[in-house]
């Protein structure tokens, strides 16, 4: 899996994995309804994977790939096909391995479409750039508008495909199928290293880890298992191995994986160093490389003014409202992404005056702010322009900082994702970059008065970070439209609004992002990695500038050079010492340009790690985002002029009229792809069999399997088992079920048939035999990510017999409708913020014999009040009500609801439960070192709780309660172990409870150990 940025930590993945998608909830709901409703109400919440778009899938067949795409993104798919075939050839050579089967590549044109994929059931967090799913061998990748990133992710995932194939083959050939294969740090590190080598992002993270002292040695890698840091360290380790021991050693590590189930031994056999010895060398090497950087560079926090210190804070914008000055920014300091403001220039602003402007991730209006990708901007009238995901695609919002309300919300028919809005000086227009349905990112201008959209650029180059000049005539932006863009470089350009011409501002093999104009329009500040990591550079206009070969000359004459229109440039970028002699200049360009020394380009900051998103304030300072100590903070660089004058490094970019700008060649000749329509073909997902032996119910055996199509839109589940206790019962004891689930549309549907027969037991009814068979249908319609409606119909014949004493026949019809809401934010063991609500109404009736007739009402409300970043008060009120003839009982008791009482041994047709819990962190890291390795628990959480509730049929005689202390330990990211200890108490009746009288505290201390997430 490719994680795009460090928010994509496994923690966030796990958070999403726990949530049940609509399809799963349909199946689970049926599972709840068919037998008695007894499973605890843990699973009927969850956010929704909403399928806003019905894709018309087609398949592009290349030599090695089946590329799934939809017609609107055909050009992108063909480009991806070229990238994939190029990657295949490279990796085939590198791995000395091929892939026997055609590789399914499923492309999406943008991240929002990707989040709708059914190839995995989980919700996909914002930062996931693609994944390889090994059951069907599928590679699923979205584009984010950047072809170089698209190519990078394709390469990354194909490294996984080749690695997976090679390792499996080696283990199989050597009959070592029980071996686990390479560890995650290696597989992900290699996927990064063999797809992009080493880049400024990786350099930034490793520098920071070394200089801040949190680099985790290989021997302790389990402490950061699955985190973005682990990915980057893995990449750094692979780089070190390749550079120190040779690239071939990496391949040999894979080829030697059969020699031991301990990868440390494999390393020793391959490199002559086990983990410990390797750590000595690697850490020494890193220190030797990184420590000298401190000589000429600084940690951002040491030389700049702190604007924020807590959480993750990015994308600052300066605002002046009624004489008061603010910094507005995006932050996830409380888990959710919100937009905040703090007074500018106030030393204690963050502590005393932090103000939440817009709360994100709780409503369908503000689903996500794209924390690391999209800037925000404030105009002179105090209007904040920002984008947020809303109902499946981005919307452009105008928010009044004065009135503190949303003034406008705009979504555009053909634009799926929007980025970095920038106000026109007059405040009547906004320029932004947007990804269309086909996946191309271009620049657009939105006119607020006419609500019209003007497209500025129209090509496959990635145009981003627009910034409107103070004179309103040009837009500076970043793009990969130089020749270096083929290799992923981004440079700065000017778009002349009057003529539509595009001029170079910078040109070279680096990444120049987020240009921002100085208030007087004489300078552009931007971030660039041209000397290894991202720092802020300043391009100052010169008073006298000579014409630059072709370009500036043309710019001044009005016949502007457009790489698109003319496409004849080759470029060279050079860095020079500041003492280099200045060029002579003949005439002044109207705007800052770095080409051939036309402007004075200097490195403004020299941070060891990285600086991003500069933004001018009204006093000539720059506020920006700095990376340090594994976090992003807003910092301020005062006295910009002094920094500029004292800068030790300047640069001159050159552009020469020479070669074509780049284009991605299409596969042709014998490699030319063909296109076919997508037809659903099913293949196996899960197959397993089981034999059980029970001292009371005897033995039973069965199997289940699941199949689905390549896109996961249609799934079938089959279940068969037999629980006959004698030969005579064999044919009558077959249990069969088949369920079809259709996830291809917004409304998820399930249909099924079943036959169940056997002896059952529950606490309410004792032993009984029941045979039931029938069919069901269910539908789940997501209103948005957080809310859905569900309905089901279940018709079945049900014949029950209680210990040969009594029998009942019925033709039961059950109807249920539910409303579900869930916008909770999860911590390591359960929700910490937001709310969850489930309201279910239904009835079950015997339409043949009138033996059964009851109604069901379930209301379950949970609310989480954040008391600090990591503590919360959780509240739960659950009421379940069955009333009528042969109404099913509900069960409660145990660790999931009424704690410290026996599990599921309190039952009745009516139940209620009131819970209060204070959740807090107990231990963040608990490590146990064994001679053979370590075992780490990264999140041990505590809870103080009290529960009150009971179950009854006719009369509620007493209230049961408990209070105590609990510990939750997360194990392996998917399991939470729970331990509760405390005392029970009772009230003899509801009246006493309401008046807090008659409380009886039981002396005995009870304790429970179980598993499961917090409610």
């Amino acid at each position, binding site marked *: 899996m490719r994680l795009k940025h460090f928010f994509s930590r496994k923690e966030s993945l796990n958070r999403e994995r726990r949530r049940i998608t609509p399809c799963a909830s349909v199946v689970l709901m049926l599972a709840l309804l068919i037998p008695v409703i007894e499973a605890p109400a843990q699973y009927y919440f969850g956010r929704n994977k909403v399928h806003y778009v019905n894709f018309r899938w087609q398949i592009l067949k290349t030599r090695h790939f089946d590329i799934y795409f939809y017609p609107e993104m055909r050009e992108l798919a063909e480009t991806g096909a070229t990238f994939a075939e190029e990657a295949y*050839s490279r990796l*085939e*050579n*590198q791995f*000395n*391995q*091929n892939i*026997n089967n055609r590789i399914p590549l499923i492309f999406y044109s943008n991240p929002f479409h990707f989040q709708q994929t059914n190839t995995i059931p989980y919700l996909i967090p914002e930062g996931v750039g693609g994944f390889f799913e090994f059951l069907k061998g599928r590679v699923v990748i979205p584009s984010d508008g950047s072809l170089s990133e698209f190519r990078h992710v394709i390469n990354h995932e194909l490294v996984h495909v080749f690695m997976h194939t090679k390792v499996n*083959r080696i283990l*199989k*050939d*050597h*009959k070592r199928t029980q071996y686990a294969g390479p560890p995650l740090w290696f597989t992900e590190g290699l996927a990064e290293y063999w797809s992009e080598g080493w880049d400024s992002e990786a350099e930034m993270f490793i520098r920071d880890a070394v200089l801040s002292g949190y680099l985790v040695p290989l021997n302790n890698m389990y402490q950061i298992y699955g985190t973005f840091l682990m990915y980057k360290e893995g990449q750094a380790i692979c780089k070190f191995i390749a550079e120190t021991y*040779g*690239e*071939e*050693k990496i391949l*040999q590590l894979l080829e030697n994986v059969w*020699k031991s189930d301990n990868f440390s031994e494999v390393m020793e*056999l391959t490199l002559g160093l086990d983990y410990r010895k390797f750590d000595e060398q690697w850490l020494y090497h890193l220190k030797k490389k990184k420590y000298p950087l401190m000589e000429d560079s600084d940690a951002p926090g040491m030389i700049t003014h702190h604007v924020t210190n807590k959480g993750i804070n990015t994308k600052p914008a300066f605002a002046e409202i009624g004489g008061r000055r603010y910094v507005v920014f995006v932050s996830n300091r409380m888990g959710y992404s919100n937009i905040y403001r703090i007074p500018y220039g106030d030393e204690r602003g963050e502590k005393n005056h932090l103000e939440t402007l817009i709360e994100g991730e709780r409503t369908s209006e503000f689903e996500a702010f794209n924390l690391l990708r999209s800037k925000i901007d404030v105009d002179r009238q105090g209007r904040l322009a920002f984008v947020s995901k809303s109902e499946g695609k981005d919307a452009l919002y105008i928010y009044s900082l004065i009135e503190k309300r949303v003034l406008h919300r705009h979504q555009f028919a053909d634009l799926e994702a929007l980025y970095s809005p920038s106000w026109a000086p007059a405040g009547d227009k906004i320029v932004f970059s947007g990804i269309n349905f086909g996946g191309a990112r271009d620049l657009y201008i939105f006119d607020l008065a006419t609500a019209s959209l003007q497209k500025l650029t129209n090509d496959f180059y990635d145009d981003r970070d627009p910034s409107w000049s103070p004179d309103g005539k040009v837009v500076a932006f970043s793009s990969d439209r130089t020749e270096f863009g083929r290799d992923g470089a981004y440079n700065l350009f000017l778009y002349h609004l009057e003529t539509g011409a595009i001029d170079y501002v910078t040109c070279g093999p680096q990444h120049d992002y987020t240009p921002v104009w100085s208030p007087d329009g004489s300078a552009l500040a931007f971030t660039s990695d041209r000397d290894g990591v991202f720092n802020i550079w300043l391009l100052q206009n010169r008073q006298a500038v000579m014409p630059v070969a072709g370009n500036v000359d043309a710019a001044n004459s009005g016949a502007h050079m457009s790489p698109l229109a003319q496409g004849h440039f080759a470029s060279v970028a050079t860095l020079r010492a500041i003492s280099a002699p200045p060029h002579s200049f003949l005439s002044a360009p109207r705007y800052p340009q770095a080409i051939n020394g036309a402007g004075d380009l200097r490195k403004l900051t020299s941070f060891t790690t990285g600086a991003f998103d500069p933004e001018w304030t009204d006093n000539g300072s720059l506020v920006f985002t700095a990376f340090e100590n594994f976090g992003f903070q807003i910092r301020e660089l005062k006295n910009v002029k002094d920094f500029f004058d004292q800068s030790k490094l300047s640069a001159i970019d050159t552009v020469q009229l020479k070669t074509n700008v780049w284009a991605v060649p299409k596969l042709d000749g014998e490699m030319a792809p063909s296109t076919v329509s997508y037809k659903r073909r099913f293949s196996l997902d899960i197959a397993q069999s089981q034999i059980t032996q029970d001292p009371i119910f005897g033995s039973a055996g069965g199997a289940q399997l699941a199949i689905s199509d390549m896109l996961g839109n249609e799934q079938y589940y089959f279940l068969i088992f037999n629980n006959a206790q004698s030969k005579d019962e064999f044919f009558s004891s077959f249990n069969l079920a088949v369920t079809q689930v259709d996830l291809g549309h917004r409304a998820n549907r399930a249909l099924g048939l079943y036959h169940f027969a056997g002896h059952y037991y529950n606490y309410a009814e004792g032993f009984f035999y029941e045979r039931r068979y029938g069919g069901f249908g269910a539908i789940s319609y997501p209103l948005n990510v957080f809310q859905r409606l569900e309905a089901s119909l279940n018709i079945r014949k049900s014949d029950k017999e209680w210990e040969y004493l009594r029998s009942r026949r019925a033709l039961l019809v059950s109807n249920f409708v539910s409303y579900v809401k869930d916008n909770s934010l999860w911590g390591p063991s359960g929700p910490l913020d937001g709310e969850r609500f489930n309201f279910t109404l239904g009835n079950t009736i015997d339409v043949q014999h009138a033996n059964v007739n009851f109604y069901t009402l379930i209301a379950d409300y949970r609310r989480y009040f954040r008391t600090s970043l990591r503590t919360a008060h959780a509240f739960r009120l659950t009421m379940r009500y069955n009333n009528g003839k042969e109404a099913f009982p509900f069960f409660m008791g145990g660790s999931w609801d009424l704690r410290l009482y026996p599990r599921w041994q309190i039952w009745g047709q009516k139940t209620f439960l009131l819970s209060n819990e204070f959740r807090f962190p107990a231990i963040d890291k608990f490590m146990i070192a064994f001679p053979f390795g370590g075992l780490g628990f990264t999140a041990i959480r505590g809870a103080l709780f009290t529960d009150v509730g009971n179950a009854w049929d006719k009369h509620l005689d007493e209230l049961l309660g408990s209070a105590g202390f609990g510990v939750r330990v997360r194990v392996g990211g998917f399991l939470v172990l729970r331990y509760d200890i405390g005392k029970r108490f009772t009230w003899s009746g509801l009246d006493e409870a309401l008046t807090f009288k008659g409380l009886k505290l039981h002396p005995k201390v009870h304790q429970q150990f179980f598993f499961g997430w917090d409610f």
Partner: protein
Amino acid sequence: MSPKGAAKKILLTAALALAFVGMGCSGFNLEWRVYNGEPTACLAGVSPERRSYLPSTLDVPLQEIARVKLSSAVSQHLCANRDFLLVPTLDGRLSAIDLKLFKVITRKKLPRASAGTIAVTRQTLVIAMRLGEATLLCYDLLEGRKLWEVDAGDIASEPLLADSLVYVAALYKHVDAYRLQDGTRRWQFRTEAQFHASPALSQGILVVASNDGKVYGLQALSGKKLWEFDCKEPVLATPAIHRNIVFIGTAGENVLVLKLQDGALLWKNKIGAKVMHAPAANDSLVIWGSNDGRVRAFDIENGTLRWVFRAGSVIGTSPLVADNLVFVGSLDHNLYALELRSGAVAWQQQLEGRVRTDPIVVGERLIVASEDRVVYIFGKATAAATQ
């Protein structure tokens, strides 16, 4: 059968009977029947020069005579004479296949179930283990008993048997020579890097190439270094020698030709893909397969590219030149027979799995294995089959 032949067979049978008796005494017994005392084609690369050249009358088209399923994928190299075939598999077993009955006579587990490579001379079998403590083992094929074993370090390459010596290049950064008779180490040459390439020998000069790209010319009898050449890129492919010329293919995507006597570079060509296997050479051409799926034939004298053949995937074997044909296997599941002069496909056969085992020719038979655990035996096509 002549009286001499009958006597020989009786002796062999008696030897086998003794071997059966000795089963309980030896940790590793060979119990197959050896019809012919001197197997052929039992060194990887056919000869100590490793040049994979074989005069042969084998002609194409061929047809499959038999296939034998084994316990796992087969190692790089097979060993056969007219009557039996020795097959080491990657699950650490050694199987003997009767080439008349086309079935496995016996299958033995190697120590620690670790994969090994083999070489046979006369009646002596040498096994080099990829992992273990005693990694070089010597057996008497006729008597089925272990003659000796030594700890030579993990060995990922093929042993070389010549002049009563066993040469091995080990992963533990040394090249050793052992007396075939008793396993006594004759000399050891230590380097800075591991060896994946097998040693090659010609005119008393042993040529070895290490992972760090160093190629050494050693005096075969003493281990004394005669010369050294630095390719400056990893060498994993076994060198081959012919006519005073050493052929080197690198993982750095180059092919080089050195003088055997002093290691001087004669020519070098960039081919743009890794070379993982030894080349084949006759008097005029040297032929390399590479990871880009291409087989290239160069003029030995000046490195001029004579022809290129492109398979569907990585070339998984060393080419084998058998008279006017070049046999080579690919991961695209195909075994190709190319015309030596032009590189045109003379015949090809699709197998069930990737081909990573060097093809061998024994008499009128072509034997190859594929990754799907099958050994294929091809012979002359009948008229009906041809049609």
